[in-house]
Each structure stands twice: as C-alpha cells, then as structure tokens.
C-alpha cells in the first residue's frame, strides 16, 4: 500500500474531527430536546474505521452502504452537513425530507445507499448493488459496514454466501465495537473471532485490524479493495469502540462501563492517534494548524445546526403521501 501523503492525513484529520464535532453536537442537541425521537446512534470513537476505509473509494464509482449508525459515512461521502443535520431534526430540507431521520440518511448523488434500521437488512442490498456493478461491468466496489451483532443474523449468512458464490465485489467491513446494544460480542457469537466466518462462504478473510488506528485501517482496506476490484468479496473485522453507548436510548451505558470507556478514550482515541502521528512525522504541522481544522469543523457543524433550526418541517398531507410510490 502506498504511504498516504501529508495532504491525505490532514484531510483525514478534517473528516475525523468533523464527524466527532457532528456527533457530539448531535448528542447535546438530543439532550437539549432539539433533536427528538428515540433512535440516534453516534459514531464517536469509530471515526478511523470509516475514514480509513472510505479513503479507498473511487468517487462516483464505488458504493457505500451501512446500518443506522450512518452519520459518518454520509459526511465522508460528501453529503452536505446542513442537510444531514436538517434530517436529524426531521426538517423538509433534510437529505430524506425529514422522513428518514438519523437512521435513514442517503444520497444517490454520492453513491451513499443509505443507513438501514433493521439489523442485517442492508447486507443483501449491498450484494445486490454489487451485482449491478458486476452485471454492467462498472469495476465498482461496494463497501458495506456490518455490526458485530449483525453477524449473527441470517441476513449476514445469506448475503455473504451470495457474495462468495457469485464473486460479487463487496467488502464486508465488520465494525466490532464489542457490543450489540448491551450484549458483548462473546455472548452473541459462538466464535467471537468474527472474521473466521469468511471461510464458510469463500469470501477472502483479511483478519482483524485495529479500528482506532487509521493507518492500519487504510492499509488493510487497500488490500481488500484491490481484491474486490478483480472480482470477489472480502471481509475485514475492525476492532473499535462506541463512546456514546448503543444509542440515545442507552441509559445505563456510561455508568456500567465507565472504566472501560475511559480507557478507550484516553489510550485509543482515533483522533489523538492521528494527531500524534501528524505532529511527530511532519515538522511543518503544528498544533495550531490542527486546531484550525477543528475550528473549521466546529464552524461547519454550528452552521448545520443553524440551517436545520431555520428549516421548515414537512407538515402537509401532500408531504405525508409523497414518495410512497413513484409514478
């Protein structure tokens, strides 16, 4: 894998801080009751996984799809943060017109096929999108995130078997954050080494990778993309951690796992790891450069909140009935 350039690293830093600012702000907005609803799943702590993986996507060609923990993928794909935030508010200007909310962001223009709320439900969709790529010989690769908990669902089995059997260009990126809601991976999977399931489908097993280290993510995902470009499916298991519990409905999280949480934040924070590297590797990069990036992310998120706040709600019967069907 070619060593990423300084420009790339700075862009990753921008992406990761944007995600972090966005998620932490969303968290605050939720507890301020400005974002409502019962489902909102944040990506804080996972940043290096999506950033390192999506860095290999050829814009306008490759595809990305995930579950309900989908804000980061939308942001990295380049979807307008204003419209993402507006969606979380349920506004008409949201990417999904306020109909989808936090769990259902998507943008056809960005080949972001969306976030899905049924665990495992998007996995066969990923295989189907990959079938189109193979069918029309586009050379595209589909990147599909998968939660550790989702790997125990029948959808995972059937989708990966299709991918292995038909050599569909899909990368199954397991985000093993240690839990499915409150259930540890070990209490849900007969074999907690989830990547070992790949062999059952003739999907290439790229093993486990430290999902907090964007460099390690970048390297292994590079190989996975390469593998799939030549037709075939790949599986990568990234070990990561969720800073904000399962979702906003997760009341007991912080208390139950305070210690574990603190350890990850202090010693394995993906942004700190990248920051440390940047400062050590590049004399030309200093604290203030990086702070400027954080500030810019901050500004973008603040603006998105303002945009969302000032946007109208969908309210009419016409809004309600539009897009049930297409004509």
């Amino acid at each position, binding site marked *: 894998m070619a060593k990423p350039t300084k420009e790339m690293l700075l862009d990753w830093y921008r992406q990761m801080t944007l995600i972090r600012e966005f998620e932490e702000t969303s968290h605050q907005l939720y507890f301020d009751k400005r974002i409502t609803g019962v489902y909102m799943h944040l990506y804080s702590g996972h940043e290096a996984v999506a950033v390192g993986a999506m860095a290999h996507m050829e814009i306008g060609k490759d*595809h990305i799809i995930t579950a309900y923990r989908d804000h980061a993928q939308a942001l990295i794909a380049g979807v307008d943060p204003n419209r993402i935030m507006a969606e979380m508010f349920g506004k008409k200007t949201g*990417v*999904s*017109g*306020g*109909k*989808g909310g936090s769990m*259902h962001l*998507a*943008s*056809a223009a960005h080949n972001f*096929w*969306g976030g*899905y709320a*049924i665990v495992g*439900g*998007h*996995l*066969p*969709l*990923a*295989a*189907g*999108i*990959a*079938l*189109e*790529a193979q*069918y*029309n010989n586009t050379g595209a690769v589909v990147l599909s995130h998968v939660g550790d908990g989702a790997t125990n669902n*029948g*959808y995972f*089995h*059937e*989708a990966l*078997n*299709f991918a292995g*059997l038909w050599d569909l260009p899909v990368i199954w990126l397991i985000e093993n954050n240690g839990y499915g809601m409150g259930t540890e991976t070990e209490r849900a999977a007969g074999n907690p080494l989830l990547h070992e399931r790949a062999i059952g489908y003739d999907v290439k097993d790229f093993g486990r990778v430290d999902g907090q280290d964007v460099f390690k993510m970048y390297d292994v995902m590079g190989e996975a993309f390469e593998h799939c470009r030549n037709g075939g499916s790949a599986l990568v298991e990234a070990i990561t951690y969720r800073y904000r519990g399962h979702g906003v409905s997760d009341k007991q999280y912080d208390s139950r796992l305070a210690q574990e949480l603190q350890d990850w934040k202090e010693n394995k924070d993906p942004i700190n790891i990248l920051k440390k590297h940047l400062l050590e590797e590049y004399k030309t990069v200093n604290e203030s450069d990086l702070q400027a990036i954080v500030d810019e992310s901050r500004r973008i998120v603040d603006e998105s909140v303002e945009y969302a706040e000032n946007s109208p709600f969908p309210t009419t019967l016409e809004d309600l009935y*539009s*897009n*049930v*069907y*297409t004509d």
Partner: protein
Amino acid sequence: MADKNLPMREALRLALQEEMRRDERIFIMGEEVGMWQGTHKVTRGFLEEFGEKRVRDTPIAEMGIGGLAVGAAMAGLRPVAEFMTINFAFLALDAIINHAAKVRYFFDGEFECPVVFRAATGWGDQATASHSHTPEPIFAHFPGLYVCSPADSADAYGLLKTSIRDNNPVLFTESIGLYRMPGAVPDNPDYTLPIGKGKVKNEGSDVTLIAYGRAVSWCLKAARELAKEGISAEVVDVRWLRPLDTDLIFESFRKTNRAVIVEESHQFYSFGSEVAAQIQENCFDYMDAPIKRVTQHDVPVPFSKPLEELTYPDHTDVIKAVKEIL
C-alpha cells in the same frame, strides 16, 4: 392480430421472455429458475436463451434473494425474483415489507425499487399446511408495495408485463391451480394493463361475485350454473389487492345490491374482510342483504386428500352463498 391460446404458465413465460428480450436490465433469479427450467416451468428454456448472467439459480436463501433483488433494483437493474412458492416468501417478509416497500419512502424518493417478486400461490395436490398458503392479503396490508394476482392467461400476460415495466415493487402471485388453464392471449408484445384496475369478467344484475386469482374461476363457473336458474351474477376480478379497485367494486354493487366475496385463503383479516368493510362503508344505502364471504376452513391445510378437499371452497359454495342472500 389473432390471439394465441395458451395455458397461464405459457402466457407468463411469454411475457417474461418478451420483456427480457426488450430490456437488458431485466434478469430473473430464484431457486431452480435455470437448469431445472423453473419449478413451474415458467422459465423453461430461459437459461439457454439468456445465459447464466440473466437467469440466475440461487441458493435456498429467501431473505437473501429478497434483499439482493431490492439492492439490484435500487442500483438500476430490473430484477424478477422468483420465490418457488409464496410460502417461502414468509422468510422474505422483512426484505419485502421493511425494505422493498419502504426504501423509496424513508429516503423520500432518493431511490426507485423496480423489482417484481414472483411466487406461485395456492393449494392443492396435498402440499400440506406449510406449503398451501394464499397469503396475498397479509402482504397487501402494507403501503409501498403493489400486489397483483392474475386470474387467466390474458391477464397473466398483461399484468406481468405491467408489473415488470412499472418502477414500484410488485408482489406478483400465480395460482398453481391456474398454470395449466388455457386462455386467449393478445398477440401484442406491448399489451399492458392499468395498475390497480380490476375487470368485470361476467356481466350480471342480481349479485356481484368479487374475487382475485383462482377464485375468479369458481365465480365464473358459479355464474354459469346460476344463469341456468335464471340468476344473473356479475363477476368482478380485482386483479390487484393493492391498489384495490374499490370504484369498480362499488359500481357493480350499486347495480346488484348484493355481493359474495370469494377467496382461497383463511377468513380472518383477509381479502373478503376488507372488501366487505369497504362496501358497507361506501354503499350502505344500496345493501339489500348482508355481504357473504366464501373462504377456506379456518384450519391449517391437512395432507389427506378427502380432508384437503373438505378444507377448500369451490363454485358450489359460491352458489350456496348467493342463494342465502337472494
């Protein structure tokens, strides 16, 4: 042009074949659709003509088949996904209802999902309890999906083309009992039928018989018998459970003031339930008698031939019901 006379199976096959010749994006996938030539032979010869790329045998993986078809459809292909029988589509309920029928809505129009889920439906041949459902109504309960079930060869031909050409997800079921039934098929490769529009299959004035799929043939047979006794029965084939052609139903009922609704499935929370509810809500002043329903007995379907026959209605039950309200 002169019509062809084809059994429904061949009408479906012709429709699918012509559509696949017309549009490269259309492909068929499902268990045994290829080398086996299709469990019900609707895809006979397809593998040879269209090749493995467009005629795809799948593993026995209904939830995967359902979801994969949805993804392929969103991405621009036009999948026709065959469930060997509708019973196995129970395993794809989530893929069909929570994905196919909703992706357009919860992304507010970002994607289209032009998929057709085909499935053989109905009972007979002692297929036993788990293999004998006609559950179209439980799928049609949910908005976002169209549900269609043809009653004869001409409709099968036109409705399948309509379903394939439409850009919404369609559950298209084919009564096993009709596959062999011959019928005229228009010699027109662009023969399509409007979505959500039913058809009067027999004009009448004394009573309206309402059904879809195989039950329509019982109604037509009952109408013929009743005619001999001077009773004039109108037969309405709704063709689509969703959208449901209530206008046509009401129009006929307002003329006859009496109705019997006939279906293959169980009675509760089903086709007849909705149609009867709709009529009394919208044609109250036209009701000269209670609306009757003819359904199968409220039991799982047993294997033994005499018991199985006891389970299901036929034209004689329709005649009996008609006489109860005349």
